[in-house]
């Protein structure tokens, strides 16, 4: 399966600032996804990162708050904008290479906002 690297692995940020999380895959993949995992909770899909076009956001998530880029088939970024303590979560990147394939996850970015 693909090797997925997320950076940073963790960060502590000030309220009102923004942080960009990077997701790098060691091979070209069809689909890339961004999830949020709030403390003690399950995973919630934020958006599907589409190569060469705007991301597809799930209900409750908007581009102004979580802008996403995907310039090629191996790389994507998620920005968490104007952060508040409620944004303290683990943010996970996942990829799927082809039809009938599971999603594989990076180790996540643990974000705390003071």
């Amino acid at each position, binding site marked *: 399966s693909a090797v997925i690297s997320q950076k940073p692995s963790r960060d502590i940020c000030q309220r009102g600032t923004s942080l960009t999380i990077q997701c790098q895959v060691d091979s070209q993949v*069809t689909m890339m*996804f961004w999830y949020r995992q709030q403390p003690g*909770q*399950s995973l919630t899909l934020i958006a599907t990162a589409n190569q060469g076009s705007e991301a597809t956001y799930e209900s409750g998530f908007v581009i102004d708050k979580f802008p996403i880029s995907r310039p090629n088939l191996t790389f994507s970024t998620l920005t968490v904008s104007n952060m508040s303590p409620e944004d303290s979560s683990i943010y*996970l990147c996942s990829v799927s290479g082809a039809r*009938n394939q*599971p999603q594989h*996850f990076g*180790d996540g970015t643990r974000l705390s906002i003071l």
Partner: protein
Amino acid sequence: AQSVTQPDIHITVSEGASLELRCNYSYGATPYLFWYVQSPGQGLQLLLKYFSGDTLVQGIKGFEAEFKRSQSSFNLRKPSVHWSDAAEYFCAVGEPSGQNFVFGPGTRLSVLP
């Protein structure tokens, strides 16, 4: 819309005992089912998947799961638990395209020495 339930929030077993984690799903077509494990401070690791065919699937680390369509279940089992199995376990259902994964709420497994 598809959904996944994991009735057990927290399970504690003794090392060497057998384990069964429950998962029930709701899906309109043939489901694609998965079990993932998340160790503390880690991302999610795929344990096993079911797409079609044999309803008993083998995974990594000695885990297996059985798909029962009549019960809409995909329970995870292991005959003898090791202390390193202590983690959070997530059941998920998805589409063949690889999209629209829905995760269950998770079951936290604790292992007693």
